[in-house]
């Protein structure tokens, strides 16, 4: 049951990114998520907080994990969840992003969960609809629920975020996960390191507030968290890296490089993993260190919290009477 004292309000209509959120706002989201973690571990997981509400998962890019996680979150809260996967090809046939937005708007959705391959597309869509919009990943820009679930995972394991040393490793240039995590962890007082070859780092990335390393061994020295990113194999066609073999040798996480980190350092990955590309299989499956499965679990709780906090309270108090 939801405690009656969680009447705190999230003062944003949408969740489009982490950049710009204040520490209390992030804490509110994390604390609310925490409550759902406990509830999700009970046999009866169903809630009625979103009863009568419609959540539409609008995905312009293939996704199984994030979409399923949002779907489960919406359903556990008692909402009606619809999945719409719009292949980019049908969008090219004529219907624009904004046409799609208007269509869904007319259907009186309460929350739109949107993923789009173009940075800023979710923001554009949010300006044209009447309902709340949650960014489920836009291009290389932001993926706020991923950063929140990462933060929740870390906080549960380490008891805090402030003062931790976190290394984010891999394809920073193309990663929305990296950007959201940089903003969140910086806001919460962690110290950040980015580890990548120069070709996979965007221009002036240090200005986002992180120390940059091109030598993974040095970058992992004494860190509390090792956060790995997925490497898209098409990066080789773009001459950003020469080969998987070489990438793994210098930037893949194996025990030898991991030995530089703190003995208790956690290993994280947003999934899906490329085993043997950015992470050694043995390391990924080492459940004394790897919290990758826990990240998935936290994902559902975080998305429940986001859906809950972004759904305007019904005028009648009944909604809160769980």
């Amino acid at each position, binding site marked *: 049951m939801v405690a009656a004292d969680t009447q705190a309000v999230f003062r944003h209509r949408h969740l489009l990114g982490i950049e710009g959120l204040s520490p209390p706002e992030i804490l509110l989201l994390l604390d609310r998520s925490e409550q759902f973690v406990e509830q999700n571990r009970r046999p009866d997981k169903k809630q009625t907080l979103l009863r009568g509400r419609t959540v539409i998962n609008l995905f312009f890019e293939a996704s199984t994990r994030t979409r399923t996680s949002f779907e489960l979150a919406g359903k556990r809260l008692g909402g009606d969840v619809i999945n719409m996967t719009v292949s980019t090809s049908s969008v090219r046939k004529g219907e624009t992003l904004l046409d799609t937005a208007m269509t869904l708007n007319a259907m009186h959705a309460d929350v739109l969960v949107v993923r789009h391959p173009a*940075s800023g597309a979710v*923001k554009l869509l949010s300006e044209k609809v009447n309902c709340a919009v949650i960014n489920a990943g*836009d291009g290389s*820009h932001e993926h706020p629920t991923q950063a929140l679930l990462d933060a929740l995972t870390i906080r549960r394991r380490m008891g805090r975020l402030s003062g931790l040393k976190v290394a984010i490793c891999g394809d920073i240039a193309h990663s929305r996960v990296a*950007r959201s995590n940089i903003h969140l962890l910086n806001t919460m007082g962690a110290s950040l390191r980015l580890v990548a070859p120069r070709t996979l780092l965007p*221009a002036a990335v240090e200005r986002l507030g992180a120390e940059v390393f091109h030598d993974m061994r040095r970058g992992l020295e004494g860190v509390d968290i090792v956060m790995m990113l997925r490497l898209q194999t098409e990066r080789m066609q773009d001459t950003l890296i020469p080969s998987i073999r070489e990438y793994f040798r210098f930037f893949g996480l194996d025990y030898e490089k991991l030995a530089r980190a703190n003995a208790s350092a956690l290993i994280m990955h947003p999934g899906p993993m490329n085993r043997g590309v950015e992470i050694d299989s043995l390391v990924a499956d080492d459940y004394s260190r790897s919290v990758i499965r826990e990240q998935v679990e936290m994902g559902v709780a975080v998305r429940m919290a986001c859906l809950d906090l972004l759904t305007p309270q019904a005028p009648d108090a009944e909604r809160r009477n769980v």
Partner: protein
Amino acid sequence: MSQKSVPEDRRVAYVNARLLDAAAHLDQPGGLITQGELIADYGSHIKAVGLAADIEVVDCAGQCLSPGLIDMRVQLREPGEEHKGTLASGGHAAAAGGITSLVCLPNTHPVIDDVSIVEFVARRARLLGLTKVYTYGAVTKGLEGQELAEMGLLAEAGAVAFTDGAKAVVSARVMRHALDYARTFGLLIVQHPEEPTLAQGGDMNAGEMATRLGLRGIPAVAEVIMVERDLRLIELTNGRLHFAHLSTAAAIEAVRRAKAAGLAVTCDTSPPYFALNENAVGDYRTFAKLSPPLRTEKDRLAVIEGLADRTIDAIGSDHTPEDEDSKRLPFAQAAFGGIGLETLLAVSLELYHNGRASLLDVLGWLTWRPADLLHLSGGRFAKGAAADLMLFDPDRPWQVREHELSSKSKNTPFDYRPVQGRVLFTIVDGRRVFDLTRAKRGA
């Protein structure tokens, strides 16, 4: 929109004006008389009193009378993309901006790489009787960068210079041949300086802003690399080359050095590059998605410096109409470009209002300097020359609002900007083609 010419014997005296002719360093009170389509006389001796009885008198109330502006970089979209802009809509917008002559880029559909298209544009523009329209011919057939267009024939038909428009002439070999060949006819080549493999896939200037927004960056070196290459080719061929809309400190410095070394190189810039920087992109504002992209504050200041020390020869509007369907899109999918005809004067005058340039300097970049680069008549007062004039109030404040602009497409990067300097009327060949008091605002 009458295309009737003014009767030859009709005389109009514009009196009580502040005469500004940048080419002659003229800034004095006086008047100007037109007879038919031509300037008959001008100077401080022309006053309301003592004029022959048959002369119509227009009292300018002390406002600035100057040669009309000459805009050397405009996309009109006709033929081929009339839903974005037409010769008529562009002509009205230009007239409202005080522009009496403009030169349009050849990137229409079909491309202006054939005599017939040059003639089509000239005929249509003549019939409209608004701002005079000149054309650039294509450097290469179809703007494909492979085979040279018929530059000699195009020039005979009226093309004033040659460019592949918003595309760079990428192949060094083709550029070399274009410079060599154009030299035979004494023609100017205009380059969009951007190394395409570096710019490829980019959405905005590479840097912190692009990184935060998750947009792909176009590095500043993409511009200077092409400029440096082409400077070598000018050296090799002794050809004449002009770089369009320079936006980076490095490219301007390269041109500065080349000019000092005596190369036949010139360049221009556009108002966005001295009035805005990459921060204008803000939260994915596609109206601020331009080519070249808006750069850093340091680059913006370098553009102003380049104007001040004459490294940059002229200012062109780089008017690029794009309709809503091309701009109301996620940033990466949106088209590049912004309109600029109606804001050309007011935004350029910021240089004067901010104390970065004199009023005559600003007018010079917009009148006789581009005219001389392209060997166009106009841009200065001269007895017997076409009466292409504008009257403007350099101080009048107004706010740029997209829906109040007469351009068909509304994609101005200056929306909401408070500016100073308003065109009161525009005269082409002795005829009033724009009059602020009669213009319908905010329709």
